[in-house]
């Protein structure tokens, strides 16, 4: 071993530069994996730290459309310091500008129990009181107001006392439709937005005594106040959704990173192959001098190990700094600032995966070097390029198994990871077969008469050609880009097409029953002939399925329908865009025991059939209803739809408000908003275009992350391309010399190579277009269940750019 070390160091000292491709590929692959893993870990760690802050306490009790009774409030206060907040959507107006949708919160004097509420410099005090409000900077810009100016919300005129700099429990508020406005409870009362049936949520946050278990305390409160619409939330629950989203995105990116590492592995294979290929005569000479095959293999394994480990270490260092780098340059795009620190687990995983990939792809070249006979000194032996032995193949299979096992076992969602690994392996295998097919197809094309074109074409399939390898190495990254463009543009055109043609211009919420006529008149003034759909709405939660209480079910059903309370309606007739797929719709003047109709998705999720019963808690009153019909709902038109519709009758006694949708031309939004805001300032108008913009922005952010990961795969593929060019350098120089001897000019020699790479670029672009479009179609049509309508102009521009 000492001799092997000595010889390896000696060889590396003078000839180690040949391993640059191995170093680059491993560095890139490991840095990508370590970086993605560290970033996800640092954000998750930050969420762990901020669980209490995000929730705003140790325990939260939430209820819809009502405030706690005296008894309930007393019970909460007995546990520990308690704060009350009320959240709802509303409209704010100022300076005669169009009314802006806002996320309104009334807070009591104890809020926030955890964390600090801060205002930007220049505020008129520390927090809003009475007829004053703190507003988000985005709202100030939109309404053109400054600190000290007045805005109108509902029936109240409020002074802007400051711009919000930090709202500690902002993340726990969930998806927001507009910028925040915070005021105290007196200010909120003055707006008169809290009416019977209005859609608002009331939260009570408590700080528990040290050592108390939030879940246990919350469950006790639920037992004391059962069936009254309360839901509990702990700091862990508060960050769970975000944790899951980050965890899943992190996992997805990690697996894309693993694909990049696998591609980089091909670069490792090329680099090591070229390096050891150049050592054939050296190996033969060492054997002539008395070196055994084992010693040869050990020497090269040590060389590759030293360079590989150094590169992996460098990649880990860069990866460890990725959270700090991302926080510095794109911190605003992150949901929470990452907790900077060293995260050993993702680094260890990245290092192990890097080592396995390096060994896996270096193994065939190592085995070939080991098998070089001493006779190679006398002539080039084709035998040295033979297939790996059964032992080597067995070892490679073991390494692949270790790679898959590590990728899957370290993932939180193992099934997803296994599916992704399987799909990626399938895609890589498909690309490999495609590459092989292209190589063989090119070999069968009749030879062109022009010698340079002939040379370029034969270079794509001659022995040692890297065409198939490059199709795999660059095909995956390019295909990802094409898939992203097709998915993005399909989603975009789906939203664009849906909005003007079929979607309403506005949703109106919190419309009181007595205001229907005023509302219709206000809309008619702005858009004569505009269409309005109105439906009563109230909130309720499913508390029992077929008579069995949901909270006592074992295991509890994991359905979106049960996650929180839902908006429901009643209707005598089948709502538009709905069709009955099972059962029968009730007669228009039905007046019997409660009947409901549910959407097909909900029925499937909860395994419900016509005739089954659901018990719904509506403002604390349990209503047991029989399912009379199951409906298929066309959600694509973005109109008003309800998963649960009651038959008219007893339910009409429940406090309710109305929801409305306004249809009209796309150039009257400003007039509609102004007219409704003037007549009914308490009605909240939500513009469909704003929701689409918010969704587009969210999709855009995810797309940026995926594009970043795709760029890493392309970078790895590019390294493979450079390696392939370097590996064939000797053959190309030989070709050039022969061509020049035969009379070719420098331009002709360069031309032949340019034609070769142009052909290769066209082939790669074609592969990316086919594979990427197929993947885009699958995701759009099969996963999102939308029409596949990519913007071919966008695809073409990205495609041709990438191809070059």
């Amino acid at each position, binding site marked *: 071993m000492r*001799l092997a070390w*000595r*010889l390896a160091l*000696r*060889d*590396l*000292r*003078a*000839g180690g530069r040949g391993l640059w491709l191995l170093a680059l590929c491993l560095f890139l692959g490991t840095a990508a994996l370590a970086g993605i893993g560290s970033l996800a870990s640092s954000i998750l760690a930050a969420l762990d730290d901020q669980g209490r802050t995000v929730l705003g306490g140790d325990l939260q009790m939430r209820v819809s459309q009502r405030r706690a009774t005296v008894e309930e409030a007393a019970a909460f206060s007995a546990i520990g310091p308690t704060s009350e907040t009320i959240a709802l959507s509303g409209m704010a107006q100022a300076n005669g500008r169009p009314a802006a949708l806002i996320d309104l919160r009334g807070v009591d004097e104890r809020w926030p129990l955890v964390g600090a509420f801060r205002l930007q410099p220049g505020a008129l005090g520390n927090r809003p009181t009475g007829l004053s409000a703190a507003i988000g900077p985005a709202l100030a810009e939109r309404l053109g107001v400054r600190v000290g100016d007045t805005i109108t919300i509902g029936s109240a005129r409020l002074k802007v006392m400051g711009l919000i700099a930090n709202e500690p429990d902002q993340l726990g508020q969930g998806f927001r439709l507009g910028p925040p406005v915070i005021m105290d409870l007196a200010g909120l009362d003055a707006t008169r937005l809290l009416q019977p049936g209005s859609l608002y949520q009331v939260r009570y946050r408590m700080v528990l005594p040290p050592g108390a278990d939030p879940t246990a305390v919350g469950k006790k409160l639920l037992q004391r106040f059962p069936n009254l619409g309360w839901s509990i939330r702990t700091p862990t629950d508060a960050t769970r959704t975000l944790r899951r989203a980050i965890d899943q995105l992190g996992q997805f990116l990690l697996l894309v990173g693993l694909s990049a590492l696998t591609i980089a592995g091909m670069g490792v294979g090329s680099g090591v192959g070229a390096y050891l290929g150049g050592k054939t*005569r*050296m190996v*033969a*000479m*060492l*054997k*002539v*001098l*008395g*070196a*055994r*095959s*084992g*010693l040869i293999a050990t020497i090269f394994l040590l060389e590759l190990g030293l360079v590989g480990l150094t590169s992996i270490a460098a990649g880990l260092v860069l990866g460890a700094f990725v959270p700090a780098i991302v926080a510095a340059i794109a911190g605003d795009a992150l949901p929470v600032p990452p907790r900077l620190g060293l995260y050993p687990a993702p680094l260890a995983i990245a290092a192990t995966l890097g080592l396995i990939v390096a060994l896996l792809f270096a193994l065939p070249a190592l085995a070939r070097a080991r098998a070089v*006979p*001493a*006779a190679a*000194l*006398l002539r080039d032996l084709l035998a040295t390029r033979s297939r790996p032995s059964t032992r080597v193949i067995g070892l490679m299979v073991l390494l692949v198994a270790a790679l898959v096992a590590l990728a899957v076992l370290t993932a939180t969602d193992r099934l997803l990871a296994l599916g992704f690994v399987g799909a990626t392996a399938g895609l890589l295998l498909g690309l490999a077969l495609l590459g092989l097919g292209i190589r063989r197809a090119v070999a069968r094309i009749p030879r062109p008469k022009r010698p340079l074109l002939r040379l370029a074409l034969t270079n794509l399939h001659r022995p040692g050609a890297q065409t198939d390898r490059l199709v795999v190495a660059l095909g995956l990254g390019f295909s990802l880009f094409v898939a992203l463009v097709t998915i993005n543009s399909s989603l975009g055109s789906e939203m664009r097409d849906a909005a003007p043609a079929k979607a309403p211009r506005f949703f109106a919420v919190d419309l009181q029953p007595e205001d229907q006529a005023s509302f219709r008149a206000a809309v008619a003034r702005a858009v004569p002939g505009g269409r309005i759909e109105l439906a009563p709405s109230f909130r309720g939660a499913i508390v029992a399925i077929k008579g069995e209480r949901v909270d006592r079910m074992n295991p509890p059903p994991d359905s979106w329908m049960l996650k929180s309370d839902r908006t429901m309606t009643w209707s005598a007739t089948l709502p538009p865009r709905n069709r009955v797929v099972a059962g029968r719709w009730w007669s228009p003047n039905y007046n019997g025991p409660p009947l409901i109709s549910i959407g097909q998705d909900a029925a499937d999720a909860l395994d419900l059939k016509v005739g089954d019963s659901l018990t719904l808690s509506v403002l604390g009153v349990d209503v047991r209803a029989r399912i009379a019909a199951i409906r298929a709902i066309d959600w694509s038109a973005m109109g008003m739809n309800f998963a649960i519709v009651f038959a008219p009758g007893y339910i009409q006694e429940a406090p309710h408000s109305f929801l409305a949708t306004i249809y009209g031309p796309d150039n009257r939004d400003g007039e509609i908003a102004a007219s409704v805001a003037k007549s009914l300032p308490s009605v909240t108008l939500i513009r469909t275009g704003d929701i689409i913009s918010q969704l587009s922005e969210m999709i855009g952010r995810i797309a940026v992350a995926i594009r970043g990961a795709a760029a890493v795969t392309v970078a790895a593929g590019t390294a493979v391309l450079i390696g392939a060019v370097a590996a064939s350098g000797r053959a190309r120089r030989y070709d050039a010399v022969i061509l020049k001897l035969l009379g070719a000019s420098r331009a002709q020699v360069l031309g032949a190579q340019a034609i070769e790479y142009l052909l290769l670029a066209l082939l790669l672009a074609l592969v990316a277009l086919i594979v990427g479009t197929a993947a885009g179609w699958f995701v759009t049509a099969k996963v999102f269940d939308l029409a596949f309508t990519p913007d071919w102009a966008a695809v073409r521009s990205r495609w041709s750019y990438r191809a070059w």
Partner: protein
Amino acid sequence: MSSVPPSGSIVITARNVTLALGHPPARVEILRGIDLDVTAGESIALLGPSGSGKSSLMAVLTGLERPTGGEIKVAGFDIARLDEDALAVARRGRIGIVLQAFHLLPTMTALENVAVPLELNGANDAFDRARAELEAVGLGHRLNHYPAELSGGEQQRVAIARALAPRPTVIFADEPTGNLDTATGGQILDLLFARFAESGATLFVITHDPELAARCGRVIELADGRITAERRHG
């Protein structure tokens, strides 16, 4: 650690050695029944035109090529029956080879090139002996130069030093001056024969140059894969 056997003992025996390459109908007979006995201390020239099988005979005698048939014993080893690793061990310190294209290890200095066979043989004083050997071939001032920094003649001197350093039983030299100009070639041959005389080993030179052959004690002529003539000088 000399492996030089007593003078007069047989160091190479070849019986009915054949070598054929390729498969029918393109099979080529390279060696056709070679019989040979070489005693320790002899200097032998293998003379013949291109394609006569000289280099192939050297390849089978050194274990670089496996014969198609026949028996070969070199320095007591049954060369024709050993596998690749056993052949490497058999050559270690017993067979020195000097080739026309030098074949120095490009990533090692002259000193390291000469030390390698000694290190492989487990010598503790490998670098001292390598230094002495290089000084003996007149390259004491080029110890730490890489092959690419040496002239052709200097590279061949290093190759000779490397072949002789372990004190082998047999030295094979295949066209040792083929890549050199006449003057340098002459110097290299003088050096080779001088070092051979000092070492007491057996020298086996492959050449198509009758003048070089004349410097050897025994000349074996080869044509079309067969020994066609053999003569001894004084």
